[in-house]
């Protein structure tokens, strides 16, 4: 089976390279507009599309990937699941008569058949699907990629593909930061999250500090988003982001069902709450009953010991 894999410099792409190589007999990789990116020593073909920069443009990306697709005729087009790939790849699937699968947590090959694992109903169920229609486009959940050992960087053969911008119905794209954000919760391996128990907006600085010591992202419950302490993109849960980090530390969060559905994919959950009967403890691996303002500083101190 042959896969064409979209590699983006903004992601943890070594993991995706390894994952694709472990699955498919034949793989080729491509990247758009990232000229100075590091590559591991691999013998698979790598195409580098010489767009001026890697920033997303729906019409340019469709055209580029459509051309590569026609050239390589893959059985599977593999990419990460995020806002821009979900923007242009459904249309591309339609035009190539390929089936489309997003929010995929695992891909498996067995007896020349492709199997896909994906959550349903906001993670309340998990489904194993057998793909009947090939070719197919698969968008993998970034947090589902297994950890890999460090790759040695190499000097593989890279084929450059020229690109010329053209006229499109999209006259202008500007990007603005809606607020200061550091790490993003949707792809983070560790998340430190705060709820109403943090007392007030200013105290999220304490969470930032804890997050920094373990390079985690900071998340929040809806109660504090609604209170205006932090922006909505930090909200974890049913109406926020569904996260699946390796470690989730909930600080001063009671554990409402809508919050819990957002973290059921987490590998290890730690809860810090002064109320021993808070529902969050029932869904956690480790529980610490106590005051966040005593425990978080103690944790920062302990973790800084290294």
């Amino acid at each position, binding site marked *: 089976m042959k896969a064409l894999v979209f590699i983006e410099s903004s992601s943890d792409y070594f993991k995706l390279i390894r994952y694709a190589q472990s699955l498919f007999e034949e793989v080729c990789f491509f990247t758009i507009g990232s000229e100075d990116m590091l590559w591991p020593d691999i013998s698979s073909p790598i195409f580098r599309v010489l767009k001026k920069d890697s920033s997303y443009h729906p019409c340019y990306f469709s055209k580029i990937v459509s051309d590569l697709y026609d050239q390589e005729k893959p059985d599977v087009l593999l990419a990460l699941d995020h806002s821009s790939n979900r923007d242009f790849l459904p249309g591309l699937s339609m035009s190539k008569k390929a089936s489309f699968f997003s929010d995929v947590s695992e891909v498996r090959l067995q007896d020349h058949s492709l199997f896909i694992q994906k959550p349903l*109903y906001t993670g309340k169920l998990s489904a194993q699907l057998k793909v009947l229609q090939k070719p197919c486009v698969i968008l993998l959940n970034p947090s589902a990629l297994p950890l890999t050992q460090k790759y040695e960087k190499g000097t593989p053969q890279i084929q450059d593909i020229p690109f010329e911008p053209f006229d499109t119905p999209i006259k202008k794209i500007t990007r603005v930061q809606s607020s200061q954000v550091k790490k993003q919760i949707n792809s983070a391996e560790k998340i430190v999250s705060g709820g109403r128990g943090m007392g007030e907006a200013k105290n999220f600085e304490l969470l930032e500090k804890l997050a920094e010591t373990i390079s985690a992202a900071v998340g929040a419950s809806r109660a504090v988003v609604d209170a205006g302490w932090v922006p909505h993109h930090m909200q974890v849960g049913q109406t926020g982001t569904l996260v699946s980090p390796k470690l989730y530390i909930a600080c001063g969060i009671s554990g409402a069902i809508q919050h819990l559905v957002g973290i059921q994919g987490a590998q290890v959950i730690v809860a810090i709450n002064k109320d021993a009967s808070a529902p969050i403890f029932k869904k956690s691996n480790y529980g610490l009953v106590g005051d966040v303002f005593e425990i978080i500083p103690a944790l920062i101190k302990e973790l800084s010991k290294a």
Partner: protein
Amino acid sequence: MNYFVCLKQVPDTTTRFQLKEGEKEVDLSAVKWVINPYDEFALEEAIQWSEKDSGKVEVCAVGPAQTKEALRTALAMGAHSGVHVHTEQSLDSLQTAQVIFDSLSEKLKKTDVIFCGRSAVDWNFGAFGGALAQLLNRTYISLAVKIEKKENSLEILRSVEGGLVEILEVTGPVVISVTKGINTPRYPSLPGIMKAKNKPIETLSAPSFEPHFTVEHLSFPKPRPSVQMIEGTADEQAQKLVRLLKEKEQVL
């Protein structure tokens, strides 16, 4: 202007699911059905626009017989007419887009803006809008949180990862998928519900499709091992926790 909204009926998000024997199918017999929350935002947006320019909103849903209830709710909220494309088959996003295109392409071509939700909360494929736009040869803009009409174009704010906002200026016909933050959907009013009874719902039927996949197995997420409470002073708790996370769980 004329607006078209595509919506899907999904199980209420607080549903507790049961599996049918064989663990390949969900038992949906006792489920409460609602309009997919993201599609409600799409509907609200279209209604607000139509109220400003006295345009018409048509809603369309593909699905089994009970899908009509979702359309009736949409009409009660303020849509003007509905189309129900009947099928008992469970279709994926691409097939649904194909059905709507095949059954309504003439109508769609006359529509200025087509709205839908970013994804449905049941299967979360999120491919419908992009696929329909492709069939109609329109521009697709996803994840809209604000749409403004300019003289000859639309200015659309897309909310993407990491708190980033993309502002696009687009000309020509579009399909727009919307997400949370764009508006607050209204509840159907009592007069709205009364009026909806007399609004037209056209019924069409969808052809059958070769499935793109089969469901091999459904499962519930693995239950977490029961919680281990860590006691002592704050310093002792911190020490014990860090040791467990490093040595036992290997997540630090």
